[in-house]
């Protein structure tokens, strides 16, 4: 290394002669969160360079080699108990493989950029990204959730897209968990729930991006660790998406000043929460400022439209270190950075702190020299700060200077290629005892109890605190119709001069993980697609977000492999590509691993929003059809939970039945044969029919003996089974024959189970012919709207 003077704020670390024990000691002293294998690889590298490393260089590895940035587990080699290869690189072998094999021309970018891109029409593309922000939200629910939203918005800005919608999916411990049962260092679900909801609303509302879809669920498996998924959808003129940076282009940091907040965020995201988390992790929590981000959005769009930059990326996990190295890699070169040029908010920051700080609301640009003045003018006109901090170079080295001293000099390739990890995985089927129980006597009360339970009740107390109307393009809202019932998916009309719409839905079935993560994943995909298709969506692309426990433990990894395998099998089966994804591992607490959770987000299009369909019944005397097959699949169901019984069979997915059901709905919506569609999900038929009635001014009467089922001879199983692939449809009576002929042509499983009524009430006849449910619309509404008070 040249320039061997005294280097301000930089420590040389004695690594070359360190033995394993000393390496590990160093690891914990510097809070590097690296494995011994990684430390040894780094030692070898510096032995080759023939010098001791500086602290900033080790911190670079700590960030760039973190699980958060490199997906080491998903990229790793996984062996079974006997040491045989189970799978090598799950991302490549399962997730990316679907998209590659389907090879759709409308997929513009997948699993590569900050966000996935699909084409919307001839001119525009849609960018989508969903992030996890579990760890920060567990420590500081308001700030953690808000910065989660801010981060995912920057991901979308990072592909030059203008954000047009947000989604959020949250999982908490039961709100009524006794305070005394909560271990030290863990916050009560109610506190977390309030803070997270407030944080999400704060950021999205301030930014003026509508929050249009999502889900909330509760389970004791989330007491120790919360789940916060934040997603953003953006719109970009397809020609404006791209990367044109070249060696010599200037590197400019724009937005908030850099401070000490968020130091070690990326490595913190991959560590386990315990009693000490609060104190040690405080610096890892970032401070949100949505107004700066609103200015950033305006600046990014102006820069894009006037072609003032050659590349862009957000400053997320790992801060400058990660953003600079990844951009340098994309141009096939390196970079020269002058850290003293970065605008900072505290004067005593050490160089390594500037390098890895995760201060929010900052973006990194590459700007051709000829455009730098116009670039800076544009940025300043939005009252933003900016600093030119270096340039890209042809040679593949990352060189960082601090007041003319070279303090980091490492090869780009080495920084991006941690040693491959090898892990063992094992999954054994849980032993579940099938419990036997009597049929309930009072179905009316049972339906009301389910409707008012925290898992099913109206999300209105939360949804109303999010602005879902801003930008004026929300067609199907999260609460829709005369009585503001629940929607299966949101519809956005993003362009003024086109009727084409965007359909956004989610699928989330974490409870099934306890039975079999494979079918949990399959069910999540089936549900996300069903929801999308209900309102008229098609040409659907999906995203995966895994939240799992410690992957160093073979049982956790075993179940993860099973779930990822299902993602391949069913995405391929349904012919839907994965365009983006993100995983959050190491979600553990003194209470054990988190309930293993997979979120599937589905983004489809609807050719004309005027054909969109909602769940509320629209007229009386119309036939009600149920599609798909009902099986005794009550394992992990909301019914079993409420009657407090374990066991049962997990809902599986029969691709043939699900696909014919979905095609039937899509075709009937296109032809205008249907008035209302709702999928059967949490709570099964009993809850879906209730939701259709409570959303509308009409009623319904159904007969359970008309339901197409197999091996069921009790009313409760028919009403509350959560079998996949099913839809409930109000068919326009003068098109009933047309509906039937499409269904027969497609070989769909279907039957007429009842009619709509002019009175706003729900009547259900049991297998024995007697009336087992007789409830008014008001009964249903009052129950459904009574829950979720926190």
């Amino acid at each position, binding site marked *: 290394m040249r320039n061997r003077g005294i280097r301000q704020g930089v420590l040389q670390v004695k690594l070359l002669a360190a033995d394993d024990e000393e390496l590990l000691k160093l690891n914990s002293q510097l809070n590097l969160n690296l494995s011994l294998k990684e430390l040894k690889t780094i030692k070898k590298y510096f032995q080759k360079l023939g010098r001791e490393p500086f602290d900033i260089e080790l911190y670079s590895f700590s960030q760039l080699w973190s699980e958060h940035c490199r997906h080491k587990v998903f990229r790793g080699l996984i062996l079974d108990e006997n040491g045989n290869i189970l799978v090598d690189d799950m991302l490549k072998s399962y997730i990316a493989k679907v998209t590659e094999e389907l090879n759709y021309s409308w997929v513009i970018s997948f699993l590569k950029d900050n966000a996935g891109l699909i084409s919307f029409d001839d001119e525009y593309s849609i960018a989508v990204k969903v992030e996890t922000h579990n760890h920060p939200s567990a420590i500081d629910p308001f700030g953690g959730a808000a910065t989660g939203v801010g981060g995912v918005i920057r991901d979308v800005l990072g592909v030059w897209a203008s954000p047009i919608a947000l989604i959020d999916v949250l999982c908490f411990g039961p709100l009524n968990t006794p*305070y005394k049962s909560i271990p030290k260092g863990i916050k*009560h679900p*109610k*506190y977390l729930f*309030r803070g997270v909801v407030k944080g999400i609303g704060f950021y999205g509302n301030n930014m003026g991006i509508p929050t249009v879809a999502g889900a909330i669920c509760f389970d004791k498996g989330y007491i120790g660790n919360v789940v916060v998924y934040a997603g953003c959808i953006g719109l970009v003129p397809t020609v404006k998406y791209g990367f044109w940076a070249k060696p010599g282009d200037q590197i400019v940091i724009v937005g908030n000043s850099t401070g000490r907040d968020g130091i070690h965020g990326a490595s913190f995201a991959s560590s386990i929460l315990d009693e000490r988390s609060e104190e040690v992790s405080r610096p890892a929590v970032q401070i949100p400022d949505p107004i700066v981000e609103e200015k950033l959005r305006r600046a990014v769009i102006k820069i894009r439209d006037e072609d003032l930059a050659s590349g862009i990326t957000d400053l997320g996990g790992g801060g400058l270190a990660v953003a600079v190295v990844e951009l340098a890699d994309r141009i096939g070169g390196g970079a020269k950075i002058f850290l003293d040029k970065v605008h900072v908010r505290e004067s005593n920051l050490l160089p390594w702190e500037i390098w890895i700080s995760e201060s929010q609301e900052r973006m990194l640009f590459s700007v051709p020299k000829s455009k730098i003045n116009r670039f800076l003018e544009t940025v300043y006109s939005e009252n933003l700060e900016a600093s030119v901090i270096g340039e890209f170079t042809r040679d593949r080295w990352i060189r960082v200077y601090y007041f003319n001293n070279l303090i980091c000099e490492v090869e780009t390739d080495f920084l991006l290629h941690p040693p491959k990890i090898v892990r063992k995985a094992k999954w054994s089927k849980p032993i579940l005892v099938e419990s036997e129980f009597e049929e309930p006597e009072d179905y009316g009360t049972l339906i009301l109890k389910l409707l008012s339970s925290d898992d099913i009740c109206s999300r209105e107390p939360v949804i109303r605190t999010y602005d879902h109307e801003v930008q004026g393009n929300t067609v199907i809202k999260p609460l829709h119709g005369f009585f503001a019932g629940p929607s299966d998916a949101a519809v956005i009309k993003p362009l003024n001069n086109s009727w084409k719409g965007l359909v956004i839905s989610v699928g989330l079935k974490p409870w099934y993980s306890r039975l079999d993560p494979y079918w949990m994943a399959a069910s999540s995909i089936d549900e996300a697609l069903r929801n999308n298709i209900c309102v008229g969506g098609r040409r659907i692309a999906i995203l995966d977000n895994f939240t799992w426990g410690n992957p160093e433990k073979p049982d956790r990894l075993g179940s993860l492999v099973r779930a990822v395998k299902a993602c391949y099998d069913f995405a391929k089966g349904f012919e839907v590509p994965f365009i983006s994804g993100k995983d959050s591992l190491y979600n553990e607490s003194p209470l054990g691993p988190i309930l293993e959770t997979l979120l599937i987000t589905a983004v489809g299009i609807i050719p004309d929003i005027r054909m969109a369909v909602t769940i509320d019944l629209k007229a009386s005397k119309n036939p009600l059809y149920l599609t798909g097959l009902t099986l005794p699949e009550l394992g992990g169901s909301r019914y079993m939970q409420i009657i407090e019984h374990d066991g049962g069979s997990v809902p599986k997915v029969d691709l043939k039945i699900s696909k014919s059901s979905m095609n039937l709905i899509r075709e009937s919506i296109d032809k205008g044969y249907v008035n209302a569609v709702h999928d059967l999900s949490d709570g099964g038929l009993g809850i879906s029919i209730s939701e259709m009635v409570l959303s509308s001014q009409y009623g319904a009467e159904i007969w359970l003996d008309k339901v197409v089922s197999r091996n069921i001879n009790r009313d409760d199983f028919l009403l509350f089974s959560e079998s996949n692939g099913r839809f409930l449809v109000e068919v326009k009576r003068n098109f009933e024959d047309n509906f039937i002929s499409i269904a027969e042509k497609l070989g769909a499983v279907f039957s007429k189970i009842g009619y709509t009524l002019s009175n706003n009430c729900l009547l259900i006849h049991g297998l024995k012919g007697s009336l087992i449910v007789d409830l008014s619309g008001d009964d249903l509404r009052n129950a459904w709207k009574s829950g979720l008070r926190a």
Partner: protein
Amino acid sequence: MVKYKVKVEVWLKDNLVDAEGKMVEESLKDLGYNVQSVRVGKSYSFNLDLSNDSLVEKVVDEICRRLLANPVKDKYFFKVMRYEE
């Protein structure tokens, strides 16, 4: 030139429902504390330079009325303290 350190507190008037305060109260009760009448206010602190000593109360009052508080809904208090550099 006279130098002052100023502290201002702004509260919603007592006759107006303070919803944030109510929410904090509920949360504290959840945690097992027997609290009542929780209200949430804002406080500001700043340094102020004036050419004339006798004006300070009037100027700070004006600052409160013109920006920091809306007298229709807010009440406010302030403290001023002279200091030397």
